[in-house]
């Protein structure tokens, strides 16, 4: 509390020096009096393109897995670098996900198998849309589940309460509650100061409903974000974020969390998971999927390391629109399928366990004879983290017309 107050006061002086409007400071000082600036945080990650869950959380104990994938299967754990990393004697992690093994071993990583959307579409666009809106099969939903998940606020909400990393505001975070898209924290400002206040009052006064709302959110967030950037960011515990899209996104989320500016939910995504061709090359640690997992695993591993004890306040949940065919296709790849796997990790997570019933990979166990069947609805997992992590117990409003069945993934659900 003290350091935050001090920071606000000193920034107030600094801003007054360059003649910027003091209104936000008044508001920020007021907000500092609101209870508990250190929030519980939910980070949602989307793997766009449909991750091949069967090659990521490998069911090496299921003999059908190897029969269905003669050239692209991940070998059973055998201690070599090319084989799956054993989790529980039946499932194993893809070897390129080694950085996530530490989280599993610390019992903070839970994996849900055979999970996904009950909607049967195999269209990327529709399936992503349904997963982001949180209403499978219903196209008219205009807002996203993560926006609805934000609990009611007491006092004035932080302008960076809900942040979507990337040049666009993700569908998952669109909706009634303020949410900002941030591409790059250090560039989140009007660089020409002579224009900054002009634009601010222009958008504040605009009759254009859409642009007015976004403009106002933007300028409030600008001030908060600029203020935390006085010093360069150095990740803790020697964490090294990879380049690419997800690494920098995770690093910026980490920075917002550590600055204690009121972040409650964050969203980031990573594309390219549509592995129709050359999913696995000659070695399992090469090829499209291994490259993706390298980036994915090292970004999440770095985040975990960087956050250290702070993980106690954080839950990260990952999702992808659908899984891929159980059988490999003709091009060392896989086509669009059905159920998939999800990762949930953080201090509140009862980890070190694979959740969800395993439906099996026998021909008659497969959905439509080709895809992993679904035994857990993705809303069961998201509903539980919304209730447990964000403390929003009104789950029916987050996932209308659905009653999530909690899987007991969290200590505090």
């Amino acid at each position: 509390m003290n350091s935050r107050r001090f920071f606000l006061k000193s920034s107030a002086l600094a801003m007054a020096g360059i003649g910027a409007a003091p209104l936000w400071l008044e508001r920020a000082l007021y907000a500092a009096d609101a209870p508990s600036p250190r929030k519980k945080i939910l980070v949602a990650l989307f793997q766009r393109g449909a991750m091949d869950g069967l090659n990521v959380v490998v069911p090496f104990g299921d003999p059908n897995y190897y029969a269905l994938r003669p050239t692209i299967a991940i070998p059973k754990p055998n201690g070599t670098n090319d084989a799956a990393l054993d989790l529980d004697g039946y499932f194993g992690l893809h070897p390129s996900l080694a950085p996530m093994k530490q989280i599993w071993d610390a019992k903070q990583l839970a994996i849900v198998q055979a999970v996904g959307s009950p909607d049967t579409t195999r269209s990327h666009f529709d399936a992503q849309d349904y997963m982001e809106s949180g209403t499978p099969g219903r196209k008219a939903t205009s807002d996203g589940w993560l926006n609805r998940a934000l609990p009611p606020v007491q006092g004035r909400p932080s302008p960076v309460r809900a942040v979507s990393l990337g040049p666009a505001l993700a569908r998952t975070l669109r909706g009634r509650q303020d949410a900002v898209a941030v591409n790059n924290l250090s560039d989140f400002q009007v660089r020409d100061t002579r224009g900054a206040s002009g634009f601010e009052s222009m958008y504040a006064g605009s009759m254009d409903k859409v642009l007015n709302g976004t403009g106002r959110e933007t300028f409030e967030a600008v001030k908060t974000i600029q203020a935390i950037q006085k010093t360069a960011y150095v990740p803790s515990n020697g964490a090294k974020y990879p380049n690419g899209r997800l690494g920098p996104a995770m690093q910026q989320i980490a920075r917002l969390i550590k600055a204690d500016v009121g972040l409650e939910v964050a969203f980031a995504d990573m594309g390219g998971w549509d592995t129709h061709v050359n999913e696995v090359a000659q070695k399992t640690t090469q090829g499209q999927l291994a490259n993706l997992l390298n980036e994915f695993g090292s970004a999440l591993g770095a985040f975990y390391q960087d956050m250290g004890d702070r993980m106690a306040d954080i839950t990260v949940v990952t999702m992808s629109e659908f899984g891929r065919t159980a059988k490999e296709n003709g091009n060392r790849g896989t086509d669009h399928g059905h159920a998939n796997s999800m990762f949930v990790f953080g201090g509140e997570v009862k980890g070190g366990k694979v959740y969800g019933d395993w439906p099996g990979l026998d021909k008659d166990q497969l959905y439509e004879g080709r895809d992993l069947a679904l035994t857990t609805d993705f809303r069961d997992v998201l509903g539980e983290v919304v209730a447990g992590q964000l403390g929003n117990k009104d789950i029916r409003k987050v996932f209308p017309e659905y009653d999530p069945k909690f899987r007991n993934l969290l200590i505090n659900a």
Partner: protein
Amino acid sequence: MLIRSVLAVILSFSLAAPSLPGKTTKPKAVKEKSGDDLKLFSVKLNKDEQIRFALDRLTFGPRVGDFEAVKKVGVKKWIDLQLHPDKIKENPVLEAKLAPLDSLRMTEKEAGQNYPTQQLIAQVARGRAPLPEDPITRSAVERLVQRYKVKKTEGKEAATREEDMIEPAVSLEDLLTADDIKTLRNGKPDDRKAILAKFDEDKYEQLAIALPQGMRFGNMPFAPLPLRRMFMKATAPQQILANDLNEGKLFRASYSNRQLEELMVDFWYNHFNVYLDKGSDRLFVPTYERDAIRPYVFANFHDLLKATSESPAMLFYLDNWQSVGPPPPNARPAAKNAPKRPVRGLNENYGRELLELHTLGVDGGYTQKDIIEVARCFTGWTIREPRLGGGFWYNDKVHDKGEKVVLGVTIPAGGGKEDGEKVLDILMKHPSTAKFISRKLATRFVSDNPPAALVDRMAQTFTASSGDIRLVMKTMLESKEFWSRGAEHAKIKTPFEMVASAIRAVGAEIDFGSNLANQLQQLGQPLYRKVEPTGYSAVNAEWVNSAALLGRMNFALALAQNKVAGVTVDTARFPESTDTLVIARQLLNREVTPATRAAIALALDEQLKKNPKAKPSPALIAGLILGSPDFQRK
């Protein structure tokens, strides 16, 4: 205190300002238009409004003088000309700008030879392809091959070391004085320009090869055009392909007289999206846009569909080139000691997107079974030597010869290439295609939620004319819904439209488009680089968010004050006035809203207080206008 006066000024102009900072418990508008707004589609625009609307919606934005020009010919005649671009004389400025972009005029093979891709470099490294003949390309490829080999043997980090590069034949010190080298390393733009401008043309090649990569890159915006292209070539030859596409698109949007045609090229490329950076697509995209999209933008949809289905770009992007049918029953089993070759088979990717994104739409009434049957019909549609930029090839040997049933229509066993063509015929005649295409056009040109009656009429035209795109456009452009209050300003510009319209409004000269292309990446719309086959969304919600708005404001201020590298804006062209209304008339072609005017007045006031001697700058005002809510709408 300051804020209070802001509010006072704003309120005095706009009594109904909906939400003021600090006092908000707003219900935020998620959807823009309700059912009531449908009435607005029957409120007609007056004559002058019609001209402004046509310029906003059917061009990349009005330039100074466009309004008067359209008024003179009449809006009807003007639209008729725009629908027949071959009747419009092209702008010589554009032709001159396009002339140096030689890769846009090459075949895929030539592009591969002149601007080799990473795959080709791997081929050369393995001795499977010869080195190019052109000396600059040759030296670049030699260097890249060298780096490839180092990377293979010593790992990634070693490959970035400059010392592994090949020694140039003529050293930099023999070409330039020590002082000039220093200036080119970190001197002022004008000094660099001067050195490069007087540099001996006969020694361009030597200079391009001798300059280290960092300096080559840093000096691109300051080099005369031929030298700049040599710089690009010497850095990474394949970058030229992306550069030419980007510059070509920006030049055409900014300078073409055939504006509607350019909008349509953008629309159809996006509809049949291909991602430039997927392997060989780097070689295929230039011819794809030129030969498969551009000639058909007002033609019959069937021809457009067919051209895309046979294009190496699409076949590669959606993996159909690798999709094969089952081996014939009488095929000999492979010999026991034969090298193990991967078994290839069916790939559904193209089949699915053809139905979902190109023709029927996701709710168009097809099943997973239809997707597989369509994919079977297209087996054997492949590419000859994709890495070298070979063309379309139908390979009957890998075609699935069995019977297929597509959307209830039986395609008998024993067919060949015509199986795929029959699928296109079935899709063309399907009512879902007429509706899906019409709705998509109306969403782009009329409103995010176009009135159903309009879409129906367009679909009727589509069906009656068997897919004549020009006639479908005519139906839309002659509708009352198009010329209505409901459509006026209903759309927010995409980042590409925002950037192009700003360039046009300020009459900017683009000399080097690279920075603009980077801007578009920052704004969330990198050209030719939408990874997903959906293409970019045309609806407002996609483009309104904090990061993008700040990006637009920054770009607007930089452009109007002539601070975007590679682009020149003559700031003297803005009226010598501090009256926002006067400058806005020039840039917006209409009156600026009171809130914008008030905010600009305030910003100028603030400047004056800080520095009483500072002269108010029309360029700053122009920047504020380009970044205003008013300018984001079209």
